[in-house]
């Protein structure tokens, strides 16, 4: 029996008149990969932004273990052990690969209000950063400036930066977005490896990838949860078929 | 302060607020739509005042001066947008600040070269030069006229931005540049138009204020800083905010002078600090 690591209760977010997330109640289980799928505009990214604190919910509640996350700022949520990656590459383009991961690694020090000792001298930070780079497979690019790397590598770095903060729960927003087949395969392998030690919330359009890694699935349509279940249940759900999977073209 | 004086002071504050609004609205428009911080706005105001003096000297009519001066301001604004501002849209605010700061230096010196460092005035048009008795003083009709003009301009801006095709393009450009471009709106033309209009608005304020304020070197500096306070209070980019901010500053300044004369120049800054304490994005600003 695993327990829920992250839960939402009647979570809603509206922008003016548009309700982007509508009364969403989901339990994300510990040590599971929980994927959220749905057509464009279903409210998946909005949901992730609510979970990571980048948006404040209009109503409803988010709990992470014993912590109420509902009104917590972004940095506090990160400090609690939730890391996220972005759909649109969000890195420090002019920094080297190592520097990009360094900041995340440094954020796990009790404080960075340290003014005298050179950052380089903090070996535990370096170890964390290097481990993150190793995990995301960018070992040979460690001193390369991020803007000079390929798109796929930047996507890997995106995940690496998050890993450097040593989170328990990963929020991955379309990690495969815009990737070729080979690169996608690498990232899928990476997610599988990460799933061994982390809980993962995954938004992804690539259904093959989703069914390859997910332990649980939630289907969202128009801001609402249509169904939640195991991949098998979702695949066989008539409701989902009708509303979503059936319309084939939208899925890619 | 007796009640009649109190009412007159309110009128003074509101009237001052109207003139501030006219200057501040151009500033907030240029920022809200183009994302450009224009320090030279005060200098545009000064140029407008000098233009009205110069053109009045030739035509002997304030109306002719304004009619001829406005197109000059539009062309002037357009030229500055094309020659300098247009290079800055993708650059940091820092460079906008510096470039427009450089413009102030240039425009102030140009003014000195063209018109010297004397001060001038423009007479109030004949039929508006009367005063209305009010309490134990008189109130100049021209001041009331200026308030009326400001109201008309405010209403005009509301209609243009809210109801016309140009306004639609302007709003689209302000909200989402890429999207507007994709819809076939020529953003760089919209920006050029907005900047020219903003310059014209500042110039117009200078022209219509000239009979009230007289015309002198450096007259733009003071109005610039106070306009900043107005739009920070109202919320940068919001015309409605500029209006409310202008009224608040006008009233605070007027009553500050009378009630706490020792601190009168700091009153409006204290007001600004209070508003920001409550709403960091200003009264009508979008949260950043």
């Amino acid at each position: 029996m695993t327990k829920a690591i992250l839960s939402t209760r009647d979570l809603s977010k509206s922008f003016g008149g548009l309700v982007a997330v509508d009364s969403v109640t989901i339990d994300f289980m510990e040590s599971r990969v929980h994927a959220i799928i749905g057509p464009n505009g279903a409210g998946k990214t909005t949901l992730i932004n609510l979970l990571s604190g980048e948006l404040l919910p209009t109503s409803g509640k988010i709990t992470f273990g014993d912590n109420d996350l509902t009104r917590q700022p972004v940095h506090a949520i990160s400090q609690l052990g939730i890391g996220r990656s972005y759909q649109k590459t969000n890195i420090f383009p002019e920094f080297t690969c190592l520097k990009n991961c360094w900041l995340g690694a440094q954020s796990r020090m009790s404080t960075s209000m340290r003014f005298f000792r050179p950052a380089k001298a903090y070996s535990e930070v370096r170890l964390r950063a290097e481990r993150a780079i190793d995990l995301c497979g960018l070992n040979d690019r460690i001193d390369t400036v991020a803007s000079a790397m390929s798109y796929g590598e930047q996507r890997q770095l995106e995940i690496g930066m998050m890993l450097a903060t040593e989170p328990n729960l990963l929020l991955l927003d379309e990690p495969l977005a815009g990737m070729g087949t080979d690169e996608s395969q690498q990232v899928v392998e990476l997610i599988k490896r990460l799933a061994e030690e982390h809980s993962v919330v995954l938004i992804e359009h690539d259904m093959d990838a989703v069914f390859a890694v997910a332990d649980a699935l939630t289907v969202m349509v128009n801001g609402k949860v249509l169904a939640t279940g195991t991949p098998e249940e979702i695949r066989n759900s008539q409701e989902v078929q009708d509303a979503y999977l059936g319309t084939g073209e939208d899925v890619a | 302060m007796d009640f009649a004086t109190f009412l007159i002071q309110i009128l003074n504050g509101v009237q001052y607020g109207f003139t501030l609004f006219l200057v501040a609205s151009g500033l907030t428009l240029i920022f809200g739509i183009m994302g450009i911080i224009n320090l030279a706005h005060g200098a545009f105001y000064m140029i407008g005042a000098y233009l009205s003096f110069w053109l009045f000297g030739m035509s002997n009519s304030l109306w002719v001066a304004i009619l001829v001066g406005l197109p000059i301001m539009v062309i002037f604004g357009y030229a500055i947008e094309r020659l300098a501002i247009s290079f800055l849209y993708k650059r940091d605010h820092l460079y906008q600040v510096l470039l427009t700061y450089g413009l102030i230096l240039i425009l102030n010196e140009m003014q000195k070269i063209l018109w010297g460092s004397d001060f001038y005035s423009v007479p109030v048009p004949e039929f508006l030069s009367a005063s209305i008795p009010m309490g134990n003083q008189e109130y100049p009709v021209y001041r009331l006229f200026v308030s009326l003009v400001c109201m008309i301009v405010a209403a005009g801006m509301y209609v243009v931005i809210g109801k016309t095709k140009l306004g639609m393009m302007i709003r689209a450009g302000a909200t989402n540049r890429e999207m507007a471009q994709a819809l076939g709106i020529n953003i760089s033309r919209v920006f050029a138009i907005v900047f020219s209009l903003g310059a014209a608005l500042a110039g117009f304020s200078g022209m219509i204020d000239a009979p009230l304020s007289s015309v002198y070197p450096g007259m733009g500096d003071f109005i610039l800083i106070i306009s900043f306070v107005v739009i920070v209070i109202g919320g940068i980019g919001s015309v409605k905010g500029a209006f409310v901010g202008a009224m608040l500053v006008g009233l605070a300044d007027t009553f500050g002078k009378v009630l706490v004369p020792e601190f009168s120049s700091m009153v409006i800054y204290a007001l600004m600090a209070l508003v920001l304490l409550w709403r960091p994005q200003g009264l009508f600003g979008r949260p950043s």
Partner: protein
Amino acid sequence: MTHSRPLLAFLILAVGALAAFPIIGDEFYQELVIRLMIMGIFAMSLDLLIGFTGLISFGHAAFFGLSGYLLAIVTPESEAVSIWFALPVCLLGAALAALVIGWFSVRTTGIYFIMITLAFAQMFYYYFNENQDLGGSDGIFIFYKPSVAIGGFQILDLNNPHTFYYFVLVSLVVSYLILSIILKAPFGQVIRGIHANEARTRALGFNTQHYKLVSFVIAGTMAGFAGFLEANAGGIMSPAHLGWHESGTVMMVVILGGMGTLYGPVLGAFAMGFLQDYFQELWSDHWLLLLGVFVIAVVLFLPNGIAGLFSKFTNKKEDGK
């Protein structure tokens, strides 16, 4: 900051030249160089905000001037004040002001930040401009430079022009080193992250507002230190020291020298001193017009300043090896 070898050589050479200058330069030029070095410290402190944290403060002169005024206030008319009292007062005053203004300001971003810092600085300006006890618009004198003594034994006589020159030079070098150390430390990594991508830095777990505020206070305190030196050098403080033209000038100095480099703003201070003199020579009645054209030219064609040119040059050399 990692110094490339040619840069390090250049910096050492420059400090050496400054140290040797009093041997050859007469009193006037020494005083001029003193003022330029002070401007260099002032500009460096602003570079911490503009070039490293990404905070475009348009009110930095507030701290510079406030600190100078504090020195004037604590200096009696008939004798010198002890530096052990005066300097902490000036620095703490500037730090406190930066804390208050910063607390309001760092909650905002972009253009709001620019305007709010400007408006707060104007508030200080008007305070000093109208406070007749502090000389009003005419300004206030500092009659005696502070005494530097330990146990009644004078260790430095700041009234001696040579001593004061070296005092300022050492201040410049120490300020540079302090900022370099801070920038290399974990704190420096965070503010650079904020500059590059604040949202991402926050998402990585940093309360960026706190870091911005601390950066603002450090910069304000160092500007206050520059103001303390300025009050000593000029012997007078006036509201214009806090005015927005002063803030604009120091911003120009930072850009001209090259922001985000620390040494660039010092180069900028010297270049600006030279240019103002040159423009006045060229067209004494309307030299501000030339300055305006120059400012615009720098913005359009030399956004990375002199240091940008310099690093381009040295990088090329290194590539050639």
